[in-house]
C-alpha cells in the first residue's frame, strides 16, 4: 500500500498572544482523505490553533513548524495560505454590508485560480457552479445574491461557510465550532454538506466542544487538546467516551501519569 499524501504536518507548534503562551508544543499530521476532530475544554487552545493556521496577526508563533502540502505555511500571508487551499469556516462569520455573496466568492475564486495560473471563471460557469454547490447545504438561492452574511440567521451563516467551502474546494478545511448555535435540523444539513465534500484528495479538521456533531461527521481520528497540547488520540469512540466522562477524566489521567 502506498503511503497516503500528507496534507498538513504540524510539528511542536508554540504560539502566544500578548505574551501569553497558548499552544505549547502541538504536533499533528493529517493525511489526504482523513477527517480529524479536535476536542477539548474551554481555553485549551482549539480556536487559537485555527487562528494560527489561518494566519491571524495577533498570534505569534514562537517555535515549531507547519508544512502544508510540503510548503512552509508559517512563511505565507493569510491570503497566500487561502490560495494554497487552506480554508477556515469561521465560528462567527463576518458580515460585509453591500458586498454580495456572489461578488465576494467570485473575487475569491478568481484570486485562487490566478494563483494556480488559471484564467478567471466566466460568469456563466460561475453561476452554474453557484447553483450546483448551493444545493449541497440547501442554501436558499436568494442568499447567494444578498450581502455577505448580512441579516443571515445563525444557521444561514454556518450554511454559507460550508457553501463557500464547496465553491473554493480547499485541500484542508478547518471547521471552527461550526456546530455552535445550530438547531438539530441545521446541524444535520451542515454536516451532510461537509460529508458530501469529503474526498480522497482533501482533509478536514473539525474543532468542536461536543460529540453531537461527530454523530454526523464521523471522524477518522479524535484528538483531545488540553493546555496547548494534544494529550490523547483515538478513534471516534474517544468522542463518546469524552461525552460520557467529561474532560475532568482527561485531567485526572494526566495528573496521575
Amino acid at each position, binding site marked *: 500500500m502506498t503511503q497516503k499524501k500528507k496534507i498538513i504536518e504540524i510539528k511542536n507548534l508554540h504560539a502566544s498572544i500578548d505574551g501569553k503562551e497558548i499552544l505549547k508544543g502541538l504536533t499533528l499530521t493529517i493525511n489526504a482523505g482523513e477527517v480529524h476532530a479536535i476536542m477539548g475544554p474551554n481555553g485549551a487552545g482549539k480556536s487559537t490553533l485555527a487562528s494560527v493556521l489561518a494566519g491571524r496577526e495577533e498570534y505569534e508563533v514562537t517555535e515549531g513548524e507547519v508544512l502544508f502540502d510540503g510548503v512552509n505555511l508559517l512563511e505565507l500571508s493569510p491570503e497566500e495560505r487561502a490560495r494554497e487551499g487552506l480554508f477556515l469556516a469561521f465560528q462567527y462569520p463576518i458580515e460585509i454590508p*453591500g458586498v454580495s455573496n456572489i461578488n465576494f466568492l467570485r*473575487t475569491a475564486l478568481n484570486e485562487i485560480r490566478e494563483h494556480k495560473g488559471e484564467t478567471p471563471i466566466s460568469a456563466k460557469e460561475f453561476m452554474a457552479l453557484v447553483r450546483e454547490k448551493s444545493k449541497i447545504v440547501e442554501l436558499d438561492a436568494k442568499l447567494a445574491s444578498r450581502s455577505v452574511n448580512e441579516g443571515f440567521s445563525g444557521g444561514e451563516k454556518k450554511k454559507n461557510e460550508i457553501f463557500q467551502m464547496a465553491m*473554493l474546494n480547499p485541500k484542508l478545511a478547518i471547521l471552527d465550532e461550526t456546530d455552535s448555535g445550530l438547531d438539530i435540523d441545521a446541524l444535520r444539513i451542515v454536516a451532510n454538506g461537509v460529508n458530501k465534500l469529503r474526498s480522497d484528495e482533501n482533509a478536514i479538521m473539525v474543532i468542536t466542544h461536543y460529540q453531537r456533531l461527530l454523530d454526523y461527521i464521523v471522524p477518522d481520528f479524535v484528538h483531545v487538546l488540553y493546555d496547548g497540547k494534544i494529550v490523547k488520540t483515538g478513534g471516534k469512540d474517544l468522542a463518546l467516551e469524552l461525552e460520557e466522562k467529561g474532560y475532568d477524566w482527561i485531567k485526572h489521567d494526566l495528573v496521575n501519569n
Partner: protein
Amino acid sequence: MANYTEDDLAKDLEQQEYKFGFTTDIESDKIPKGLNEDIIRLISKKKEEPEWLLEYRLKAYRVWKNMVEPEWAHVEYEKPKFDEIIYYAAPKQKKKYESWDDVEPELKETMKKLGISMEEQKRLTGVAVDFVMDSVSVATSFKEKLKELGIIFCSFSEAVQEYPELVKEHLGTVVPMTDNFYAALNSAVFTDGSFCYIPKGVKCPMELSTYFRINESGTGQFERTLVVADEGSYVSYLEGCTAPQRDENQLHAAVVELIAKDNAEIKYSTVQNWYPGDKDGKGGVYNFVTKRGICERNAKISWTQVETGSAVTWKYPSCILKGDNSVGEFYSVAVTNNYQQADTGTKMIHLGKNTKSTIISKGISAGKSQNSYRGLVQVHASADHARNFSQCDSLLMTDKCGAHTFPYIECKNKTAKIEHEATTSKIGEDQIFYCLQRGISEEKAISMIVNGYCKEVLNQLPMEFAVEAQKLLTISLEGSVG
C-alpha cells in the same frame, strides 16, 4: 508574515499619490490677472456677449465686492488672493471638432490619463461628451442626434449666442447672484460651462456627459451650468472632473442650476477627483460650489455625487421642492485623505404639499482628514404631509481623521414626517481578515468593503460612471501591499 494592520493602511493612504497630475501642453490665451470692471468687460468682449449679460456680470461684481467670504464651514484654509487669479484662459485653437478623429493627440492623451480615453468613450454607446478644457468647450459630440429631438446640449458660451432667450429667462433664477459670496463671484466672471434644454415631453435617450478640467496654472475656474427640463421631460446628466497637479491652491467656484418643470425629472451625477494636495497638505483645489435645483409640480431632482478630490470642498447640492408632490434626492459619497477637508451635504426645502426628500450620505475619512456632513431639512408651513428620510454614515480608516455630522431640521408644519439616522464605524480588521482568508488581497478587500459601504450611492450612478467611481474610490484608498 505580511500582515496588514490599520497602521499600514494609514501609512499607505498617506503615500497614495495623485495619479492624474500632469499638464496638457496647449497654448493658452490669457488675460491679465486680478479682477475689476475692466477685466469683466474684457471677458465679456472676448466672448462676444450681448449687452444684457455684461450688465448681469457687472451687477454681480458690484454685489460681490460688498460681500464677505463665509467662514461657517468646518474647514480651515488660506483665503484665495482674488487679485492673483487669472479669470480667463482659453486654448488658442478655437476650432470646433467635427469628430473625435480630429482631436489633437495631446488632448486624446489627456483623456487617456483621465481613464476616459476616446476609444473607451466611443464604446460607451449613448454617451455624449462635452469636453471642457480650461473653460472653453473644445469638442461636442452626438449633437446632431440630440438636435433631432429638439434637445439642446452645448457649451454655455454657445448657448448665449444661439439661444439667448432661453438663457436669459432662466439664468440666476435658482441661484441668484446675491445668494452667496462665491455664487456672486461666479456670476461676475464665469467663462464657460454647459447648457442643456430638454423640450416638453422629451425623454433624453442618452446620458449627457461633461468632463471638466482645470488645466492652466493659476487660473481659477468658474463654470456655469444650467439644465432646464421642460414639462414632462427627463434627462440624466453626468459631470466628471480632474485637475492637474499644482503647488498653489486653485480656486474652483462653480454654479449649477437645475430647473425641473411640471412632471419633469433631472438626474445629476458628479464624480469629482480634483487634485487633493500632497501628503503634507500642500496645494490642491479649493472647491466652493453652489448647486441647486428647483422642482415644480410632480417634478423630481436627484443629485448623486462621488467626491474624492479637492483640498477643501464646500458643496451642498440642494433642492427647492416648490411644486406639490415633488421629490428631491441626494446621494453622496465623500472621501477625504491626508489633509483634505470636506464640508458637504444638502438642503431640502419643502414648500409644496406631499413633497418628499431622501438624503443618503456616506463619508469616508482617512489620513488626517476632516469630513463633515452638513444638511438642512426645512419644512415650510405650506408643505402639508412633507416627508424626509436622512441617513448619514461615517467610516473612519485611521484614528487621526475626523468625521462630523451637522444635521439641521426646521419644521413649521405638524403633518410633516422627518426621519434621521446616523452611524459611525471604523473599517473592521475582522472584515479584512475574512476576505484574506478567502484568498482576496488586502487591496481588493479594502476596495470591496468600501464599495460595499457606498453601494446605495453607487447604485444611483449610471453603469459606466459607477465603474469609474469605483476605480476612483480604490485609487483614493488603495495601499501598496508589501
